[in-house]
C-alpha cells in the first residue's frame, strides 16, 4: 500500500497556551476509506482544517501525495483534496448549481471553452444534471451536499474529506451521500477520510483513527480498534451493535466469533441455527 497522507508530530492550538492538537502522527493509505472517530471537542474537525491548510499548524509536518504542506505548496496540496463540511447551507456559493460547480474551475483558471463539458460530466456523476439551473433554495440538504461533491470532483482531487457531512441531513440525504461516497471509493479508487461519530460507519471502513483531547489514542483496522469496549465507552462513543450482540451471546455460552459487522453476524447466527 502507498501512503497518500502523512502527518508527523502535528501540534496546533487556537489559544497560545492550549494545544487542541497535541503531537499527532498518523498515515492514510491511498484508496482507503479511513474514519477519524472522537467525542465532541476531541479535535477531529481541527485536523481536517489543518490538512486543507485552512489553519496554520504550530509544529510538525503534513505531507500530502509526497508534497510537504507549506505556504509555497499550499495550492499544490489543496488541489489534491476536497472537503465537504457539515452544514450544506454554508458551502453553497453559486446562485445556481451550474455556477456553484463552476466556482472552483474558474478559480483554477480552467479554459472557459472546456468548462461546460466538465460541469455537465460531474453534475451527471452526482445525479444533479437536471438541476443545473436550479437555485440553492430549491434544493434539499442532500442535493446541496451532492453539488458540493460535484464541485470537488470537477477539480479531480484524489482525496475527499467528509467533516460530518451527513449529520445534518435527513435519512434520504444521508443515504444519497453514503452511496455516492462508497461508489467513488470502490469504483474510482478515491481516498475517503470521514470525520464522524457514527460507529456503524467506522465499522465498515478500512481503517479507524481514534482521537481524544487532541491525541491519537488508538488506530488500526476497525475489528481491532472498535472491540476495545472500555476505551470506546470512555471516549463517549458507542459500541458497534454487532459486537454488543456477539459479546452477549458468548456470555450465554454460545460459541460465536466477536463481530462488528452485522451482515457477518447474521450469516454466522443463521449457520448455527440451521445446524441445530
Amino acid at each position, binding site marked *: 500500500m502507498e501512503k497518500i497522507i502523512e502527518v508527523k508530530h502535528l501540534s496546533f492550538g487556537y489559544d497560545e497556551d492550549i494545544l487542541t492538537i497535541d503531537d499527532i502522527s498518523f498515515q492514510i493509505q491511498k484508496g482507503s476509506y479511513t474514519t477519524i472517530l472522537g467525542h465532541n471537542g476531541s479535535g477531529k474537525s481541527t485536523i481536517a482544517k489543518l490538512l486543507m491548510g485552512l489553519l496554520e499548524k504550530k509544529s510538525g509536518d503534513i505531507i500530502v501525495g509526497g508534497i510537504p504542506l507549506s505556504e509555497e505548496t499550499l495550492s499544490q496540496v489543496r488541489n489534491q483534496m476536497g472537503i465537504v463540511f457539515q452544514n450544506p447551507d454554508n458551502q453553497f456559493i453559486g446562485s445556481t448549481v451550474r455556477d456553484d460547480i463552476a466556482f472552483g474551475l474558474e478559480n483554477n483558471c480552467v479554459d472557459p471553452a472546456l468548462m461546460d463539458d466538465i460541469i455537465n460530466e460531474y453534475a451527471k456523476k452526482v445525479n444533479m444534471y437536471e438541476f443545473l439551473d436550479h437555485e440553492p433554495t430549491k434544493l434539499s440538504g442532500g442535493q446541496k451536499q451532492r453539488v458540493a461533491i460535484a464541485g470537488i470532483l470537477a477539480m479531480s482531487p484524489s482525496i475527499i474529506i467528509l467533516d460530518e457531512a451527513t449529520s445534518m441531513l435527513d*435519512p434520504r440525504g444521508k443515504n444519497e451521500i453514503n452511496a455516492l461516497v462508497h461508489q467513488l471509493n470502490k469504483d474510482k479508487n478515491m481516498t475517503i477520510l470521514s470525520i464522524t461519530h457514527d460507529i456503524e460507519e467506522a465499522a465498515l471502513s478500512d481503517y479507524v483513527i481514534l482521537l481524544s483531547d487532541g491525541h491519537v489514542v488508538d488506530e488500526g483496522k476497525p475489528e481491532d480498534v472498535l472491540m476495545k469496549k472500555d476505551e470506546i465507552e470512555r471516549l463517549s462513543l458507542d459500541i458497534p451493535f454487532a459486537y454488543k450482540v456477539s459479546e452477549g451471546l458468548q456470555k450465554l455460552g454460545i460459541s460465536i466469533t466477536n463481530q462488528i459487522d452485522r451482515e457477518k453476524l447474521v450469516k454466522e447466527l443463521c449457520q448455527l441455527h440451521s445446524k441445530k
Partner: protein
Amino acid sequence: MSITFKEVEHTYSVDTPFAYHALKGVNLDIKKGSMTALIGHTGSGKSTLIQHINALLLPTSGQVQIEDVLITATDKPSSLKSLRKKAGLVFQFPEYQLFEETILKDIIFGPKNFGVSEEEAIKIAKDMIQLVGLDESYLERSPFDLSGGQKRRIAIAGILAMNPDILILDEPTAGLDPQGAKEMLQLFKKVNQEGKTVVLVSHDMNQVLEYCDDVVVMNHGRVEKHVTVAELFKETEYLTSLSIDLPIITSFILELNKNGFHIDPSIKDINVLVQEIGGQLNE
C-alpha cells in the same frame, strides 16, 4: 388532549408568486403526557407544524388548540405570553441562542420575563443546571466558554426554567457525540416521566424506537400516520418508500427471521434480543 390540530392549512407568502402550501388539512391529537416523535423528510412540513404549537406561525385556515388556548387565522390567542409559557420550543442548535454574560443570567432571563422574582429565578436556575447534568459552579461562567454539547444543555435549561407543560424539540441531538446524545435523550425522557408532553423531531429511528411512545409521520405537508412506535416499524414497505431506515435492532431481527429465526420484531432492548437469540439456538 394536550395538542389538537383541526383541518390546519398553512401557506407561506399567500397571494404572491412565492406562495408555498406547507401544511395541507392537518388533523392531529397529541396525548397529554406522551413522548411523540415527529418524523419526515426535509420539506415535509415538520418545522411549520411545530411552530404552530406556540403560535410562532398562525394557521392560514383551521384551528390549533393547545390545552385551553385556541389559535385560528383570525383569533390570535389573547395572551401569547401564557401560551409561550405553556409550550417551550427548542430550535435546532439552540446554543446559537445564548446571549448573556453568564450562564445564570441566561437561564433566569425567561422566568424573569414571566414575572418570577430574581430570587426565585436564581433558585430555579440552580435546580435546572443540575437537571441538565452540570453543577452550580457553571452558573457564574460565560456560556461562550463551553463546548457545543454543554452550551446546548444550558439553552435547554433556559427553556425548562420556564416550566412549560409541553416541550417541543427540533433535532436536539444533531451533531452531539453518542454519549452526549444519550444523556440528552435520557433527560427528555425524565422530564416526560415527570408529566410533561414531549414532541421530538428526529431523523434517527434508533432514538424514536428507544425513547418515544407514538410517531407522527409527515409527508408533503400532510400527517400520513399517527401510530405507536411498534406499529410504525411493522410497516417496512411504507418506510422504505419514504427512504426511512428501520432501527438497527429491528432490521437485524428481520434479517434473522428471513433465515429461520422467529423473533418478535418489536423488541427494543438489546439484552432481551440476546436472550431471545440464545434461547432459540439452545432449544
